[in-house]
């Protein structure tokens, strides 16, 4: 009994270690950035030359979500801050939060004040803030300090009039300033969104973040999931864990599984999330990862939500959906609750089903279908009509409905027959 508890404690520790590793972007992307022609080194080179040679620069980091753009950037920045502690200050903006110009300048002013221990006033106007920013740029330039602006979700800043971008890039043109603007975006064509005057001030440097090759991915998985030998866990447990892991990774079925997952989501971020799920399913009493963990994680990611919704419906709701399908087949352009009810009544009259219920119960089922988003209103503006009269449309195809009916437990045979007509 005591041994089992000890084993559980050990596996819990190992689990904790793996989970914190998988949630830490720094740990994940450092090994991928080791080679000299990786994006890490290129980025580091560009920024450090701007810092040492006191010149202005701008660069875009592009790549799909989860490819590690911000993670690599943070690695570079932390290394540079260690190298040149007094010569860099970093301002971080995010397009989701600060796409409005007033908001963005306020945030820039706040962060500048925090770094340089100045008092920040919340009621400063847009002009005050922009003058403050220009003044700070000049001062920092004279003191040979580079300000690095990180603009996350760059495509949001390129919406609207792009006033912030223009003022930033314009301020960089003056002789005294030393600034680097780094834009991070998932849209690969984000520089096409820039206005002419902004684009002319932007140096067209782009770094593309692509997903690593297959061998790199395999090496990466092994590196991430192996327990380190010098941790606080006992040596024999770690050795056995790593040994089993190696055997699992070389298994053909495992490789197939990873390929299937990566064919849908091919970035490192998605892979890490998948590994996190698999690791969380680790059986604590056994203490080792097994193929079953990965299989469960894969199946929970490969859900078909609409089919699940259909399986959760009651028989009456299935009737309503089949009626709507028949109305569509009859080429009726739009239908509402009452037309569905007439179809339902005609089915009942011709086939004498036992499932004939009153209008209010059917309306309740209809609203349940609306809530699950299996059907929806055609337009959102019809708020001056009651629910029964607004036209609706089906949000699933007939193939999906057919599949759902087949997999439904105790589906009435009449429904399948009606669908086949």
């Amino acid at each position: 009994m005591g041994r089992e508890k000890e084993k559980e404690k050990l596996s819990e520790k190992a689990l904790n270690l793996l989970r914190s590793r998988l949630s830490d972007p720094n740990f994940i992307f450092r090994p991928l950035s080791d080679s000299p022609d990786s994006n890490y080194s290129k980025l580091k080179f560009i920024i450090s030359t701007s810092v040492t040679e006191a010149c202005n620069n701008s660069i875009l980091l592009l790549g799909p979500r989860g490819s590690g753009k911000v993670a690599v950037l943070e690695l570079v920045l932390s290394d540079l801050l260690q190298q040149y502690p007094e010569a860099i200050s970093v301002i971080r903006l995010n397009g989701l939060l600060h796409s409005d110009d007033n908001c963005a300048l306020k945030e820039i002013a706040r962060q500048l004040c925090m770094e340089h221990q100045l008092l920040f006033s919340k009621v400063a106007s847009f002009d005050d803030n922009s003058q403050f920013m220009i003044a700070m740029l000049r001062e920092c330039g004279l003191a040979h300090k580079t300000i690095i602006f990180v603009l996350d979700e760059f495509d949001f800043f390129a919406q609207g009039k792009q006033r912030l971008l223009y003022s930033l890039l314009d301020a960089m043109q003056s002789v005294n300033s030393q600034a680097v603007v780094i834009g991070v975006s998932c849209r690969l064509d984000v520089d096409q969104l820039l206005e002419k005057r902004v684009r002319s001030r932007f140096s067209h440097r782009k770094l593309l973040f692509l997903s690593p090759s297959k061998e790199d991915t395999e090496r990466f998985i092994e590196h991430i999931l192996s327990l380190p030998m010098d941790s606080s866990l006992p040596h024999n447990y770690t050795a056995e864990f790593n040994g089993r892991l190696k055997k699992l990774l070389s298994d053909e079925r495992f490789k197939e599984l990873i390929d299937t997952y990566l064919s849908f989501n091919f970035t490192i971020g998605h892979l890490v999330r998948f590994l996190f799920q698999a690791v969380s399913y680790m059986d604590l009493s056994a203490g080792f990862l097994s193929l079953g963990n990965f299989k469960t994680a894969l199946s929970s990611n490969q859900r078909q939500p609409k089919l699940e919704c259909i399986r959760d419906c009651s028989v009456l709701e299935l009737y309503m959906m089949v009626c709507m399908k028949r109305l569509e087949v009859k080429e009726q352009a739009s239908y509402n609750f009452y037309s569905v009810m007439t179809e339902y009544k005609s089915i009942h009259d011709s086939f004498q089903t036992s499932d004939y219920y009153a209008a209010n119960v059917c309306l309740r089922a209809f609203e349940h279908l609306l809530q699950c988003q299996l059907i929806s209103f055609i337009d959102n503006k019809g708020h001056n009509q009651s629910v029964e009269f607004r036209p609706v449309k089906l949000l699933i195809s007939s193939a999906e409905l057919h599949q759902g009916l087949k997999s439904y437990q105790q589906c009435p045979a009449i429904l399948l027959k009606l669908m086949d007509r």
Partner: protein
Amino acid sequence: MATEESPQVTRRATRSYSASNTAIESTNLPESYKPTINDLGFRQQPLRLEDLLSSFPGRRSQILELLRLLGPLNSPMFPILVYGGPSTGKTSVTLQVFRHLNRPFIYSSCITCYSPRILFESILNQLLFHRKDSGHSYSSVKRCERPSDFVNYLREALENVLTNLKGNSGKVSSKMSGRPDGTMVYLVFDNLERIRDWDKSSTILPFLFNLNDILKMPEVGLIFISNTSPDTYYLNIGYVEPIPLYFPDYTEDDLRHIFMANQTNSRLYASFLDVVLRPFCRVTRQVDELAAAFSSLFKKYSEPLSDKEVAPNEEMKRRLFSHIRPHIASALNETFQVRSQPLLKAETNEETKKTNSSRMLGIREDFDKIDFHMSTSAKYLLISAFLASRNPATLDASLFDSTGVSDSRKRKRKASEKSMDQKEMAEQELLMKGPGTFPLERLLAIFQCITSLAEDSLDEEESHELTVEGGSRGLMSDVLLQLSSLCNANFIIKGGSCPLEGSTRYRTAVSEDLALKVARSLKFPLSKYLYRR
């Protein structure tokens, strides 16, 4: 002299304001409760795993999966999206899991927090241990409207709470002191699907899903609970999806377990469920709708039994089944209703009548009456609105001529094929379009015609309900007030304005059944006035 009620005040104040002011100052404000860090955890008896699993029948795999994804103490996590149909137990399972784990969490529901500002401020209030009370006139601790402000305040507040928790974790075991465990804080967002209907949903939803990346704090865990599946949230902006956790609807066996819990006479209830569960599951499988139907039906089921504690044998079961069978069919066609008049009348009716058929008659009588109260003029207004929506405007002159005699007899023509087809198409069109709109003047004209009719018939019965002595002007103002209250009760919908005239048009929203019921209560021959094609 009533100096109490109207004191000398330098600024203008109404009498009621000054009266209430003095009243507040005289009473002592009660001591308000100041929340502390212990409130972030569930302040109830901690729950063991076996109790947790047994209190949620049919949810064993979901609970275990949730526990596995949350992980051991102080282990960072990826955001989780818990989704499933309504009343499948998502919120209760999540909250009870947190009670079992005794970890600090912040809960906010997007039904009570119906705008971004309220959502942000509610979370900040909970993190900063601020409770809204009359001392600060029910204001939040910080005014926060935009996501950028929210992120800054949230970071500060979380850092405070986390340092607090870290300090606590070094001390005595928290089981004794009721303190929550660990150094992580979890944010639970409930009813996420409501955000889709907000104005700012296109910025708030991606913001919430990306909150994990924006905050970059591994000690914060995010859990989203939603009634709709993840594919209803796909937006123009991508995000790394949260880990989905699906709560399927209950199967029939699970439903049986759920309803059998906490029953005093389990064998009687089991035989009841054998009879009703299967037919009702064909209509709906949601627990709340079934529970409402079963509670009233079970009372009827156990009526013939003199001793409610007895366990039924086969013969008794058969007797009870034949007793309940006619009621099941009618109960299947009912949805949950809140009756405004007490059921005493119906019960006395049933006690006096012994035969089956008259009991059914009693039920039908109930259906014929409307069970809410309306004034007479409101009822007439409702009927006029229904007529105005149903009939085309050109018929008004012939239906409501000055003598008040309705003449809707049409010359009978032989129905030809073409006219039958046209009739069908016209009916379909009518179904699709719904009730028509009408301007205010037409409504009032019809109302006047109808009420003048009613006056003549009422004079014969010597009733004094309608007062027209005040002249038409008095009736008019009352009618406009009634119209606005009918609009508020959604009997009449205010539609868009006519593009030519600019006046607003109205539309009726009641079904024909309700209009017939109202007309029957007034003894008004509605069917004579309805236009049938």
